[in-house]
């Protein structure tokens, strides 16, 4: 209960896991109120128009041919006046291009690799923190949680930028390492894969900690006491009880980090090398620099195809968490 009370106030992220209960005035509404359709219609129409329709347009353009015009793509459907028929020309060239051009296959696998490694590091750093917070006293818990949320409210862009100052050749980290005599030459930290991992872990850490915390906080601690009474060492009790119970939190947190990280644009642009781009950057370069809207659209569709499974999994886990709540 304390959990759902704090949920709406301080920590908008972990409420991702805590959603609705079974409604009861629903029956009343359904039977007695015609206005309900109107009310449902407001967010529904907005999202259909500005969230679903855009994807259909992207899908459509991904099948068309690039053209020197404004907008720079050929129409997919044409009214053939002579035959009085609507002619659709589906063009798979963009997708073939993605599959055959080495660049795209490489950037896709690189993006997945970066996202996966960053997710793993988020988990390694976030799990002990979430665990420590969940086992603190209730007063300290809300303080720790607020400290986790606070950076999330400050500008994401500026927090990534802060790392440029730390990782530069004459940046703080190199100065500190040389100051204590660990290294003689400054290390190249900025514009490397390492810098991208740090940037992603740093920006997405709250997304990992909050679902993990929401899970760990609900655990029944008497299970651990029972294990201790029966002679299990704390580490064994952790591995056989706490860890398996926290798998839903691990999955939710990991997906919450992994999915957006694959398409990340700002972090690799500021911290990563320009030799190996991530897929989000390639998409925007195709669009802005090459003005090739059809290829950019097919890249977007390819990213979506890659992510559709994790997204469905995310929604599935979220719903299961709800079912377990009641």
């Amino acid at each position: 209960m304390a959990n759902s009370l704090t949920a709406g106030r301080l920590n908008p992220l972990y409420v991702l896991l805590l959603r609705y209960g079974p409604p009861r005035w629903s029956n009343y509404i359904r039977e007695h109120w015609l206005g309900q359709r109107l009310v449902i219609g407001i967010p529904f129409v907005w999202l259909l128009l500005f969230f679903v329709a855009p994807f259909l347009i992207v899908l459509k353009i991904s099948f068309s041919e690039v053209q020197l015009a404004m907008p720079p793509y050929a129409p997919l459907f044409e009214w053939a006046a002579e035959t009085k028929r609507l002619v659709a020309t589906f063009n798979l060239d963009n997708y073939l291009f993605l599959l055959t051009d080495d660049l795209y296959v490489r950037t896709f696998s690189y993006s997945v690799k970066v996202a996966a490694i960053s997710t793993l590091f988020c988990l390694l750093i976030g799990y002990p923190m979430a665990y420590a917070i969940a086992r603190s006293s209730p007063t300290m818990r809300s303080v720790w949680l607020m400290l986790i949320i606070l950076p999330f409210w400050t500008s994401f862009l500026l927090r990534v930028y802060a790392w440029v100052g730390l990782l530069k050749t004459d940046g703080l980290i190199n100065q500190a390492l040389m100051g204590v005599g660990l290294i003689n030459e400054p290390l190249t930290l900025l514009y490397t894969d390492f810098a991208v991992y740090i940037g992603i872990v740093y920006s997405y850490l709250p997304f990992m900690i909050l679902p993990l915390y929401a899970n760990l906080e609900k655990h029944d601690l008497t299970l651990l006491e029972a294990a201790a009474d029966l002679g299990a060492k704390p580490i064994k009790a952790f591995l056989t009880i706490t860890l398996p119970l926290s798998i839903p939190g691990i999955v939710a947190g990991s997906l919450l980090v992994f999915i957006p990280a694959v398409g990340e644009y700002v972090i690799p642009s500021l911290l990563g090398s320009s030799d190996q781009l991530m897929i989000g950057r390639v998409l925007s370069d195709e669009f802005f620099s090459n003005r090739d809207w059809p290829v950019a659209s097919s890249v977007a569709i390819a990213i979506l195809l890659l992510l559709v499974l994790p997204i469905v999994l995310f929604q599935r886990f979220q719903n299961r968490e709800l079912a377990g709540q009641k």
Partner: protein
Amino acid sequence: MTSRGWFRYSALAAGFAFLYVPILSMIFFSFNNSRLVTVWDSANSPTLKWYGELFQNDQILRAAWLSIQIAAMTATGAVILGTVAGLVLARFGPFRGRAVLSAMTTAPLVMPEVITGLSLLLLFVAMEQLIGWPQGRGMLTITIAHITFAMAYVTVVVQSRLAGFDDSLEEAALDLGAKPAKVFFRITLPLILPAVISGWLLAFTLSWDDVVISQFVAGPGSSTLPMVIFSKVRLGVSPDINALATIMVLIVATGVVLSALYLKRQEARRVREEQLARAGD
């Protein structure tokens, strides 16, 4: 037990150091005299000169004003749409299209921004061709795009707040003959007000912070503050950005702490009033 306590505190200490050292270093070097951001010029520092420069930078001031306007409109729009969506999902029970609405409000939470940005831009271009609206791109298109992804967050916040209350008060009011609209404004809305307020703040922050989606749907002459910052820091570190960051961090930190205290007090008062009401029975 003590060894576990030690482990817990070191995990927290290391984690919070990781989260806060970059922010603190940014604040520290905003008072540095040298243009080389990370080399402390001890002879002439600390100084406020970068703050002075910041307030003379027209480009940044104009962009900040645009961003504030967009963020305020976004937050208001997203709160209205998100509250309605949250209410519908939490209270309206099963209806046709419920699963679709639920999916449409969760997907934007994890959707990579480049995809949202690209697809919205293509929609705006197509709409302009078809119906001549929206004309060109700028404040309006950025606001629409921001509302669309921010409302998903508001929905989740409102929905979970509603889940924390059972609906007996609402049912009682309906049984006594109040119209659903009246029930909403007199009972539901006051109950979920803290969630609505934090939803508004969250939507404001999300919009204020967004660079990727804005870059896609902005037109010439409508650069938001994050867009200006992004193009500046791509060229390397710049001390006036440190000053800007410091100001923003201070505002946000004060705001978050104050609103947390305020909401905590409200909550305590509500609980106390409920207890009094029960005691009065």
